[in-house]
């Protein structure tokens, strides 16, 4: 997907690293490799690849992630 990027700075993805409990489920469900684990915490490494599918939000056990996926 390297050469297929959509618009920059539009995603509504927000990660609250303080709330993250380090389960790494977001890195598993994200189809765009937006997250990576560093020192037992999730970090956003490719914000502009986020397509707001909501998989991470749905599966985050500590409500550390939010996104407003709209109706698309």
């Amino acid at each position, binding site marked *: 997907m390297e050469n297929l990027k959509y618009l920059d700075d539009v995603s509504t993805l927000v990660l609250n690293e303080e709330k993250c409990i380090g389960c790494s489920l977001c890195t598993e469900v994200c189809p765009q490799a937006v997250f990576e684990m560093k020192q037992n915490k999730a970090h956003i490494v490719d914000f502009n690849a986020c397509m707001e599918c909501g998989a991470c939000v749905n599966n985050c056990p500590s409500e550390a992630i939010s996104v407003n*996926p709209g109706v698309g």
Partner: protein
Amino acid sequence: MKISTSDVNIMPAMDKTIVSCSTEISNPMDEYEKPGFKLCYYVDRFIQTDSGFIPVIKSKLETKDLFSTFYVRCGINRYKYTVAPGLYGIGKPDKNSEVLVTANFKLTFDHLRKELDDINAWILVLDTKGINVWCAAGKGTFSTRELVNRIKNCTLEKIVDHKRVIVPQLGATGVSARDVKEQSGFRVVYGPIRAGDIPAFLKNNRKADKNMRQVTFTLYERFILTPVEIQTILKLALITALFLLVISGFGPDIFSFSKAWERGIVSVFALMAGIFSGAFVTPVLLPFIPPREFALKGIITGSIFAIPLITIISFAISSFAGLLALFLFSVTISSYLAMNFTGATPFTSPSGVEKEMKRYIPVQLTSLVISSGLWIYSAF
């Protein structure tokens, strides 16, 4: 009137039919026939479990599967292409076999079973109303609730000894692993995105590597979507073509049928070029067209197609206003349809699409009004 059949053999095959009727044909599937039900051809046999008879499906696709895949890819009957939700088996499943969850779109079902040639597993089909896993997850039919209900419905705990279901990763948009565990006792393991990676995933102790977790959008994957793109706009295109024929008739004689025909045909060519560019060429060549906005990609491809077309048309129509009208029209159609393709890709965010639409729909509408005005003006 009398019709004589005395010397005409009207049913030459009759004798043979009688012979074959008297021989017994044994079909092992006969015992599963029930009044009012029809056996599905992709079911190979049935197996007895603690939860009743479960159909075991074939992993080999047949010619008719390939034909119906072709039809569905062309958009024919694609909302009625379903399999019955519930539990199936593949290979020789037993109490230790994995449970693979999927959607009841037949194309999805076929995609899955053809990859499970040497695998013994259970397949739990959710009722997604004939929609694929990702889209159904986004719209809420491939959901925690549906999964929990299906697990309970087929009494999965009687079928397998473990407490684990493998859900395709793209189903995560509609499924919460934690809620499923809470409500059903079954743990959700997210499997790979593509069915083709399942054998490797299972061999690797249910661990997916990074490639299995990322979506792709290859040339073939883009191409295969274009027939449906074109099919869905076909009706609108026909109405537009009729409308073009009508407005092409306006002129000094108020309305002229010969003009409607001559100028109408030319404008329909501009329409077709726009459709071809926006709904086929732009999707297929997507990463090779520089801008990120799809509408802008459509303008670029649309212009590349419109310039030679207008050059040819200029032999038939000499008015500059008329040629400009056709150019604008063709490029606008291409831009709109390219923007429409944002709904079919696996990487466009709804927020991005909204931003793009707010910017480009006014541009497209203005261009459409100007080109209609110029087209009518050029007839005078």
